[in-house]
Structures are given as structure tokens and as C-alpha cells.
């Protein structure tokens, strides 16, 4: 009779994370993912957290903006793209000439009623995930045209959803960079797989499908 080696008890997800991740800050982050997973009833599908982190990391650090500028704010945006401020350092310098390759729409400048349908169409042509930055006073709320500007859309959130507002007239390049960092931080806390995985976990729990 040969005895099987004593089976070690299954390790918990938390233990596995503690073994695999040495950086305390990273560990805290992944443990918070785990807490969220548990609180959302997804059991120990521990793979979700690191995979989402990887996806978010890739998304946040490779934001390709759409090449278009509507007014003076675009000059500041060009400065951010050029060598002095160098947007490329943060992975967002690949300005694309077509919305189908872009992730980020920086609406830089006054949007007129005549231009509004074009802006909407460009937004619709960007594949998901997509992000919109309202740059400058005009795009936030009409700016100097708010009272007598019969031709100006009083804020682009009336025509497309906006993720980040950048105040200024025009905003300094630093302000645009700051907005980019804030957007990247926000993308870092996105849950790109949450919907898919919570469905899977639900199936697992109800036994309606193989995990």
C-alpha cells in the first residue's frame, strides 16, 4: 500500500497573490481587485484582476488621438504633440488620421452647429473603447460665445459623451497633459472584463454551464 502524499489544502487566491507579487503597492492594488471580485459575487476567479490590469495598462499607455482641431485650442494641442511637451512620452502621441484607428477624441476648439454633425459622426466611427476630452472653454460650455454665439454648440456634452473636461481659454499644454494623466488613471480603474466574467461566475454558481 503506497500512501498518496498528503494533499496540501488548496491555496486561496490571496495566498497566491501574496506569493506572486512582491511589490507592496502592486499587491495592495491586486488585493483590492480581489476584494471587489469577492464582493461582487465572483468567487475566486482570481485571473480576472491581473488580466484586467494588463488590459488597462495597455489601453492607458497607448491612447491614439484623432487628428483634428477646430480652433485656437488646437494650437496648444499641437504644442503638446511637439518636442517641447512631447505627448509621445506618455503613449498618446500617435495622432491618427482616421477615427477607425483612434481611441481618444480631443475636441480642441469651438464646435459650431454646422460642425456638430461631423463631430458626432467622427465619434461614432471610433471603435470601442473610446474616450472624449473636451478641451477649452468653448467645448465645455460655449466659452465666450455662450451669450451671443448663435452658431456655437454650448458644450459638446450636448452631442457626445465626455470623459474629461480641460478648462482654459485655451488650456496650457500642461493642463492638457494633466487631463491625459487623469484619463489614464481612470482607465486604470476600468473593468473591461467585468461584465463578461460576472456572467461566467454567475453560470458557475448556478451550475448552468461548465466554468
Amino acid at each position, binding site marked *: 500500500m503506497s500512501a498518496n502524499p498528503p494533499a496540501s489544502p488548496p491555496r486561496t487566491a490571496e495566498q497566491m497573490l501574496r506569493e506572486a507579487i512582491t511589490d507592496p503597492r502592486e499587491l495592495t492594488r491586486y488585493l483590492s481587485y480581489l476584494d471587489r471580485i469577492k464582493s461582487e459575487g465572483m468567487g475566486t476567479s482570481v485571473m480576472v484582476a491581473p488580466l484586467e490590469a494588463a488590459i488597462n495598462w495597455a489601453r492607458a499607455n497607448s491612447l491614439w488621438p484623432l487628428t483634428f482641431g477646430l480652433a485656437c485650442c488646437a494650437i496648444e494641442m499641437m504644442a503638446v504633440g511637439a518636442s517641447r511637451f512631447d505627448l509621445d512620452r506618455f503613449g498618446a502621441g500617435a495622432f491618427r488620421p482616421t477615427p477607425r484607428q483612434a481611441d481618444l477624441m480631443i475636441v480642441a476648439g469651438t464646435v459650431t*452647429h454646422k460642425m456638430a454633425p461631423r463631430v458626432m459622426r467622427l465619434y461614432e466611427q471610433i471603435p470601442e473603447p473610446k474616450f472624449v476630452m473636451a478641451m477649452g472653454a468653448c467645448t465645455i460650455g460655449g466659452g465666450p460665445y455662450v451669450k451671443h454665439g*448663435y452658431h456655437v*454648440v454650448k458644450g459638446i456634452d*450636448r452631442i457626445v459623451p465626455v470623459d474629461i473636461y480641460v478648462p482654459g481659454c485655451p488650456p496650457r499644454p500642461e493642463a492638457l497633459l494633466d487631463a491625459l494623466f487623469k484619463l489614464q488613471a481612470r482607465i486604470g480603474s476600468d473593468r473591461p472584463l467585468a461584465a463578461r466574467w460576472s456572467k461566467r461566475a454567475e453560470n458557475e454558481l448556478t451550475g448552468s454551464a461548465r466554468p
Partner: protein
Amino acid sequence: MTPQEIHARLTERFGDAIGPWTEPERGDPHIAVAPGSLHAVCAFLRDDPELKFDYLQLISGVDWTDRLSSVYHLMSLSHGHGVVLRVDLERGNPRVASVADLWPTADWHEREAWDLLGIVYEGHPGLRRILLPEDWEGHPLRKDYAAPAAYHGVTNA
């Protein structure tokens, strides 16, 4: 030639169609011209060898609330002199002959004055809106213009 000499030449040739030499408190000194004679006056200014106004600098429109004006800044590159013409138009029915056949520059300038002030330039090759969308209603630089509450579902309030 000085503008006053040009004014004298025009008065001599067109008589009553030419108003007095005007030096307003604000704005450029100018000559008022009767709307019916504007095209003939412009053709004369362009073709007379001593005047030879070969360059139309701009056409602008003015809403005085009781009338509209169309203003022409002319210049002669050959002689180095210039003059400003003004035609006063009825606010209810502002019509004046187009000068786009004399100076092609006038084409877009007249379209702009039509777009924003509603001045009709008769004989213009294609008097369409140039800045605003084709289906825009009204002429926004008129003093009594009220902005629409919404345009294509996008509210203005």
C-alpha cells in the same frame, strides 16, 4: 488722385446718383451712391484709365437699424489711390446689383453679406450661404435677429 477729386469726377459723370463727400465721425470717409447706379459707377471706376480701380479690397454690410448699407473699399494698384463707396438699402427689401462680374473678389464677399445680413445682390452667379449651414433661418448680424432655441435638436439655451 485724392478721394475728393474722384468724388468730383463721379459727380460730373453721374450727377444726382452720387451723394456728397462724407466724412463721418467714426469710420472711413466715403461717397454715397444711389443703389440703381452702383454697377455703372463701379464699371466706370474700374475702366476709366485715370481711375483704374483694379482691386476690390472688401465688401461689407452694415445694419443701421433703419436701413442697411453695402460698403465697397476700392483701390487702384496702378495709381495707388483708393475710395470707399456706400449704398443705402431699404431694410425691408435690400437689393443692389452684384459687382461680381467686375471683380471676382465680390463673389464670396457678397455671399457673406447675404448670409449674415440678408442683402440681395442681383445678378450674382450663385447667391448661397457661405458661412452658415444652407438650412439656417434668418440673417444673424441683423440687429433684431434672435438666435433659434435649437438647431437640429441641439438646444442653445
